[in-house]
């Protein structure tokens, strides 16, 4: 498929749209289940609005196209890979700082945050091992 073929929805775009719709449904179900109709409506609208915005802007902005899952050539896939890696590193850094603060203050979230940090660290080690053998 050509990179400029906008008529067929790529698997990446389908996946992003599906995630948005599922997240909207989850917000709605959780909100209704808890009796928080505001959360249900606002959460679902935000997710559906985000999906709609990406769809409308995908031909005008490369960033919107990439956020919408339309990485269709090697440079765009490289951008998504680097963005994912940077986001993951930032997330782990924030988790580590939050865990240290929680441990220092004796917060009840320390165990949860420590577990999440461990997941981040071990998954990084595991993927490094995997890709050093398969890439």
């Amino acid at each position: 498929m050509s990179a400029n073929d906008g008529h067929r929805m790529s698997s990446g775009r389908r996946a992003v749209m599906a995630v948005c719709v599922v997240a909207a449904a989850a917000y709605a179900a959780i909100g209704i289940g808890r009796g928080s109709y505001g959360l249900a409506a606002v959460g679902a609208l935000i997710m559906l609005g985000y999906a709609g915005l990406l769809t409308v802007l995908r031909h005008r902005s490369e960033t919107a196209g990439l956020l919408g899952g339309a990485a269709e050539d090697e440079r765009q896939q490289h951008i998504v890979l680097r963005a994912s890696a940077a986001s993951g590193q930032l997330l782990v850094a924030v988790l580590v700082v939050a865990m240290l603060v929680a441990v220092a203050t004796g917060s009840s979230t320390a165990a949860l945050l420590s577990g999440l940090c461990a997941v981040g660290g071990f998954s990084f080690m595991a993927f490094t091992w995997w890709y050093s053998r398969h890439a």
Partner: protein
Amino acid sequence: MAVSGAAPKRLTPALMSSTLDYVRNDVRELRTASGLSQAALGAALGVSRQTVIAIETGRYDPSLPLAIRIARHFGRTVEEMFHVCQ
């Protein structure tokens, strides 16, 4: 005959990346000479217009398969289109 004391530096990846500063290419010149727009070249190569722009301005160095595809599109070899500048 005396031999110079300095041993030749072994060409390690780190040394290569420090000496090979950047890769210049002739994509823009060849594209304009053939009357193609960036979008048309992108469509012919199966990449986006933004990727053609990034390659032309040197912001992105294409992979070897894409470099070969670009060179073949213009009837050149990769070495004729991409020049390593130190």
